[in-house]
């Protein structure tokens, strides 16, 4: 929506003007910049990246300076904002949304002396790294709990955009729900936004009306949690941040994105002069994917079962995408005992067998 974009650019411009004065005051310490797609107060994705930034600042104290710009629209505006950050002397810049990929890549080429890191993307170059989390590991745990908790056997899923990242989460949760509950069905509603509370609330309501008593979300606001709470007997999971305001019901556990350690590690590399292009994809074992506290709303035996799954994934004993797995059209994807490669996971563009829906183009 163009009006919103215009507005956000204006806001971003104002923020940048504010940053400029701070930068002039202390130019000798390394400067680390962040751009966020949503407001830091979304209590989800962007909030959690900012928590990581705060940990970074706390760890290094006066030795570094951090700046952030929130509500940066994906597309040309992101390029402008990244350029501004680079011009104002940022040495390392984290671009924290999939949709910043093209912009980050372009700006990285223009500023070869600045290091860039792009979250959840796949384009790398001499000064551009990518990093992401194996959220599908957390989704497996959610799927298991959802399969056990549901009484209607209908699990709702609010998708953002039909990209591999989101489809992977849908497949992972469905596979693990199906393992403990063969009758389970998955209903998917696309919000076409990462962050639109009104659309998310309406999507959650539609799923609940369709009989879903467990709702998973791959969008960033707490609006679906509020909708589930109002509906009563509906379970949800915190997304990106703990969303513990909604515990013990409807939020029964959560996937927490833990970026702080990664940001500290990469900034240390920058200071030491050892920063190199890297491709990091951390899971439960590395601590990048955290699982929030499971509340009493989940029966003890299910909590034990979920904890066992977490432990087995963390130890590397079990991979959530282990064959036999068929695609929705019935063709074989993974043979018995075969484990999906990272390339297969990163390009996933199909539902697994059992999900009765079509992926939008």
């Amino acid at each position, binding site marked *: 929506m163009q009006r919103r974009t215009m*507005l956000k650019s204006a806001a971003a411009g104002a923020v940048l003007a504010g940053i400029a004065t701070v930068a002039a005051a202390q130019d000798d310490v390394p400067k680390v910049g962040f751009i966020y797609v949503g*407001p830091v107060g979304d209590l989800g994705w962007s909030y959690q990246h900012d928590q990581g930034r705060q940990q970074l600042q706390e760890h290094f104290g006066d030795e570094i300076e951090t700046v952030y710009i929130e509500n940066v629209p994906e597309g040309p505006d992101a390029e402008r904002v990244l350029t501004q950050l680079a011009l104002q002397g940022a040495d390392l810049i984290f671009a924290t949304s999939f949709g910043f990929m093209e912009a980050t890549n372009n700006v990285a080429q223009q500023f070869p002396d600045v290091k860039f890191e792009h979250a959840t993307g796949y384009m790398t170059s001499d000064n551009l790294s990518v990093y992401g989390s194996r959220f599908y590991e957390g989704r497996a745990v959610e799927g298991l709990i959802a399969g056990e908790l549901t009484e209607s056997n209908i699990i709702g899923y609010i998708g953002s955009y039909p990209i591999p990242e989101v489809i992977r989460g849908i497949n992972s949760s469905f596979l693990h729900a199906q393992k403990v509950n063969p009758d389970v069905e998955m*209903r998917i509603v696309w919000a076409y936004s990462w962050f*639109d509370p*009104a659309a998310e609330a*309406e999507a959650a309501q539609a799923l609940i009306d*369709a009989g879903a008593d467990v709702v998973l979300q791959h969008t960033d606001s707490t609006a679906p949690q*509020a909708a589930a709470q109002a509906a009563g007997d509906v379970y949800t999971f915190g997304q990106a941040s703990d969303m513990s305001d909604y515990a013990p019901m409807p939020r029964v556990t959560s996937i927490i994105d833990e970026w702080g350690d990664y940001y500290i590690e990469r900034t240390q590399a920058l200071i030491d002069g050892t920063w190199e292009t890297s491709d990091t994809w951390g899971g439960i074992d590395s601590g990048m994917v955290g699982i929030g506290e499971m509340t009493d709303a989940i029966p003890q035996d299910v909590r034990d079962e979920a904890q066992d799954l977490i432990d087995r994934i963390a130890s590397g004993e079990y991979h959530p995408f282990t064959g036999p797995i068929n695609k929705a059209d019935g063709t074989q994807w993974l043979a018995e005992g075969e484990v999906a490669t990272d390339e297969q996971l990163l390009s996933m563009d199909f539902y697994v067998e059992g999900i009765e*829906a079509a992926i939008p183009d």
Partner: protein
Amino acid sequence: MSGIDPVILLAQLMVVATPILLAAIGELVVERAGVLNLGVEGMMITGAVCGFAVGVATGSPLLGFAGAALGGALVSMIFGLLTQVLLSNQVATGLALTLFGLGLSALIGQGYVGLRGPVVPDLYLPLLRDIPVLGPMLFRHDAVVYLGLGLVVAVWWLLTRTRAGLILRAVGENHDAAHALGYHVVRVRLMAIAFGGACAGLGGAYLSLARVPQWTEGMTAGAGWIALAIVVFASWRPGRLVIGAYLFGGITVLQLNLQAAGVRVPVEYLQMSPYLATILVLVLLRAGRAPGSLGKTFHAAQ
């Protein structure tokens, strides 16, 4: 088509349509007075943030909605002052008001992101709520849903059955004639604009206090523009306004429900269906005539 319950669908429709209905009934009065205010979106979002802020501060949804109406009315008075007293162009000023409202609300709302507002309770209507089918469909909503419908009836009554409504319509049809008869054109229009602002503010607050409920930048996401379109579709008549708002709300809910029910229709078609249906009906049903002086600048000396 399993899993779509028409009773729930209709109940949801009333809720989803309410913000649009509130904003549209306000704009209808404004346009019947001969003023075209394109700032509905800006007034709505201002109402959304004012309502949420007051609601959080006082813990009372009632005061929240009152604050939203006041906020919407105040910001509409900027438009009123510019177009009625300083005689600026209404289209340009209205668009500016939308941009201003979006920016102002983002500024006011900075401290309110992620907070939780007061709960808006459903109105408890004994007996009525227990009627089979109709009970859950019509009589288990919060008070604002009924306020929206009540306002439509009140506006209809005011416009068609009272002297005040006659004056308002006269001002809108031919402001020179109304002026010659001794009516105070600017005063009538300012009152209409303030009413329109208050209604848009209520509509916005319904999103931030009841529907979502939380504050987010740009959360009205175009609802104000839909309200403007529905006023035209309704041929400036309150009865048709309800049909338009419920049609749009209904198809919005239906497309989400179809997705949730797993109907294999491409999501893109479902997503555009509310807009398509509203435009289609707008084209087919449009029979009314716009108020004669709509959008024209009035100056007593000319």
